[in-house]
């Protein structure tokens, strides 16, 4: 926690995006998290991603539940819409908001407690409904706000700050999402912005629910020797299987890769993701192969990172599934939204 706010002064050469805004104008209020918290780096990555997408702040909705991770929505894009839900209930609020207004971009930020313990049922159904949003889990393996108990993502054998060893098996959000049929599943690390920023951008542009599990170390309760979610352990056991570059619509693909090295995945809005395999055996479009690969690596204590699975051809996106109107509800004339007594009577008449 800082006693002074981050000064408004900026580097004189700070670039602006197509809207004429600098990255600084996508910031939120000053973080009150512990100094060195991984979540603050995730916040910085979200800021960078939104700036790079030329997103109008008022076009963004940021949602969260309860926990250290859920505080972070206050720290980016001050001009966006926001909702802090009850513990573990962010997914419901996001679903409702998305149903009402499909014209906005949705980011839900949650944690391993909020999404894998109290809110796991909500997460599961948000994936099942394929709500069009970026669902970002800041995963640190402990309950930081209640002083460092193991969370549902704590690995077997990891040591708490006071020496207890965890014996319960963890829930891995990536494997969970793959099982449930998620169409965009990624894992990254708060300390690797080069990887995380394009993933966030691609996830925000994905038509459906994009889940990113971000290993985001708790500097206060889970950054010691013996922990499997510390900065040092993550760096040693983190294995990028695939590199993803996000290319906005109408922008030439400037990176010159050797033929056959990259796969281009077109997204529904005209942007694309360029995938570069770092492990030749890996195919991110094959869900079952991805599951097997991730699981085998997890057993070897390796965190596979990058864009683990992507399926842009899936047609089961939330709005399509529910045959909602193309227009956000607030854009539909009142007469049409609420056709009046006569129309209601006629409808009721059908059931008589």
């Amino acid at each position, binding site marked *: 926690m800082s006693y002074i706010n981050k000064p408004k002064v900026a580097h*004189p050469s700070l670039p602006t995006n197509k809207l004429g805004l600098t990255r600084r104008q996508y910031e939120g209020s000053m973080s009150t998290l512990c100094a060195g918290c991984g979540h603050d780096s995730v916040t910085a990555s979200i800021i960078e991603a939104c700036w790079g997408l030329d997103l109008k702040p008022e076009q963004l909705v940021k949602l969260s539940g309860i926990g250290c991770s859920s505080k972070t929505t206050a720290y980016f894009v001050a001009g966006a819409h926001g909702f802090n839900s009850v513990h573990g209930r962010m997914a419901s609020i996001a679903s409702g908001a998305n149903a009402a207004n499909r014209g906005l971009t949705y980011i839900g930020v949650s944690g391993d407690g909020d999404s894998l313990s109290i809110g796991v049922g909500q997460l599961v159904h948000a994936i099942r409904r394929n709500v069009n949003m970026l669902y970002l889990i800041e995963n640190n393996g402990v309950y930081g706000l209640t002083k460092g108990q193991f969370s549902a993502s704590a690995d077997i054998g990891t040591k708490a700050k006071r020496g207890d060893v965890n014996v319960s098996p963890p829930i891995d959000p990536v494997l969970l999402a793959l099982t449930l049929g998620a169409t965009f599943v990624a894992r990254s690390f708060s300390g690797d912005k080069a990887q995380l920023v394009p993933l966030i951008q691609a996830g925000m542009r994905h038509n459906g629910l994009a889940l990113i599990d971000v290993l985001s170390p708790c500097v206060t309760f889970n950054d010691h020797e013996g922990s499997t979610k510390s900065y*040092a352990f993550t760096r040693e056991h983190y294995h990028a299987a695939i590199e993803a570059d996000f290319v906005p619509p109408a922008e030439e693909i400037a990176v010159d890769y050797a033929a056959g090295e990259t796969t281009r995945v077109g997204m529904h809005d005209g942007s694309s993701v360029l995938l570069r395999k770092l492990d030749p055996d890996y195919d991110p479009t094959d869900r079952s192969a991805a599951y097997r690969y991730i699981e085998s690596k997890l057993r070897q204590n390796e965190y596979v990172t990058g864009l683990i699975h992507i399926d842009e051809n899936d047609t089961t996106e939330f709005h399509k599934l529910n045959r909602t109107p193309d227009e956000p509800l607030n854009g539909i004339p009142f007469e049409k939204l609420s056709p009046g007594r006569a129309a209601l009577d006629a409808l009721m008449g059908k059931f008589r």
Partner: protein
Amino acid sequence: MEPTDTSKPDYFHRVVDCQWACPAHTDVPEYIRLIAQGDFTAAYMVNRESNVFPGILGRVCDRPCEPACRRGRIEEKPVAICRLKRIAADHRDDVAALLPKAPAQKNGKRIACIGAGPASLTVANDLLPLGYAVTIFEQYAVAGGLMRTNIPAFRLPARVLDEEIGYITGMGADLRLNTPVRSLRRLLDSQAYDAVFVGSGAPKGKELELPGRNDTDRIHIGIDWLESVAFGHVDRVGERVLIIGVGNTAMDCCRSSLRLGARQVKVMARKPRQFFKASEWELEDAEQENVEIIVNHAPKSFVTEGGRLLGMMFEQLEYDVDGGEIRATRTLGEVFIPCDDVILAIGQENAFPWIEKDIGIDFDQWSVPKVNKTTFQSTLPGVFFGGDAAFGPKNIIWSVEHGHQAAISIHKYCHDEPVEERMPRGLKLSSRKMGMHEWAYKNEYNGVERRLVPHVGLVERFKKIDIEVELGFTAEEAALEVQRCLNCDMQTVFAAKLCIECDACIDICPVDCLTITANGPEARLRARLTAPATNRTQALYVSAALPQTGRVMVKDEDVCVHCGLCAERCPTAAWDMQKSTINIPNAIDEQVGTCPV
């Protein structure tokens, strides 16, 4: 790149741009903080230690510190460092008790200083407290040198000069007024002095030998004319005055003319504005008084009729300027500009008619003495030069620094120690951490714009020649201006072995100074930082390899605002804010033989 070696005092010294740029290395951030705390007396004394004449320099310094000021790279205008110096002088209490004193027991050494300008006075200031007997020879009836004769009283009142010169003569200097030295040989032969310091300035104004130059008495040499004005020998000038040249002397000449009856003053410049020698603020002050500055006019001849000056002929020029350099010059034609007086302000040079050519002091082809740039010793070991006398015209703050350095040399010379072996500069660092989020300095960035110094009204100021035009900051304005200082001496000091590469400092830095990246050659590193480091005059602070990934932490010093947030957000205290104090040795710091210090 190799890890930055911060054990050399120069590294952190350079970060304090103002102090690095100041020839006398005045501890600017320290005195600005003291002003912010309301301790004007202490601020004055910090100044005096390095620049000796805070009240004088706070008005007329050429302020090399301000173009260097980091604030000027972040927003347009630097901190008004110079005028803050003045407010320290204006608001100080009696400093008599704080001034250095000469000891009752002298060391038996006698020093002669020639000329009572800033260089000689600094030598006296440094040597008197060490027990030297210092005699200052001055040709005029008052001390001060060019500060007195060439800077008009409406910029620098006599009272300020008297006071600060008085502090030095009050230590017991033997000031001999109206005593020009006519022969250095005679002075040396008298064997009355152990060493001689020549601080006689660059007193000869440059001539402009054009047709008609000698046909009238209305053509004046700028510095001589200013001197006559200062001594009251000249108290009026014609209605139309042309000033030739556009340096700071020209600005003093045109503004003085306006106070002596001129109605129409034109400053004639040969080149376009970007090539002017005058400081921007002196140009502004002159233009505010309705002086017209005419560019691209080269003097051709003086037009006279029977000893009466009618005007001057000029060639009108046109230039092709590219990349700050003149590529081609064309003459467009000639033009006549009528006038009653012409003042030549095209430079000045050294003149030593009183130094015999055969006494062992070597001069170069421009009659400038050969002087060692570190020791200020001439080719005759016991004779030292400083100020404009040494390397030609510079400005007061350089003279002061020359004086400090010459004093060290004289001190060593008088004790038979080699003058080249000088105490090195030192640097002290001490943490400013007071608690979790508390620093022993005000780290909040204040966005307030540069304050303007109030001036006497445009009618009022012309009533007398010695009405000081600048009023100086009010305490309220100064209280705002001091908040603009970025405390560049609060250094960001990094300990690589503590870093866990959490990126917290990088994310919080408001000005994108920090990057963790793979090491590489400097040019490549500069290009791939969070914000490209294009200002090559500013250093990169490169750490040793970081423990977890072997990458390096790189800080571009260029626009760091020293807010301390990197250190505040660092979970392992790898970053710390430490105050640097740079020790610039003066004569008193040198340990010599039997010196009674």
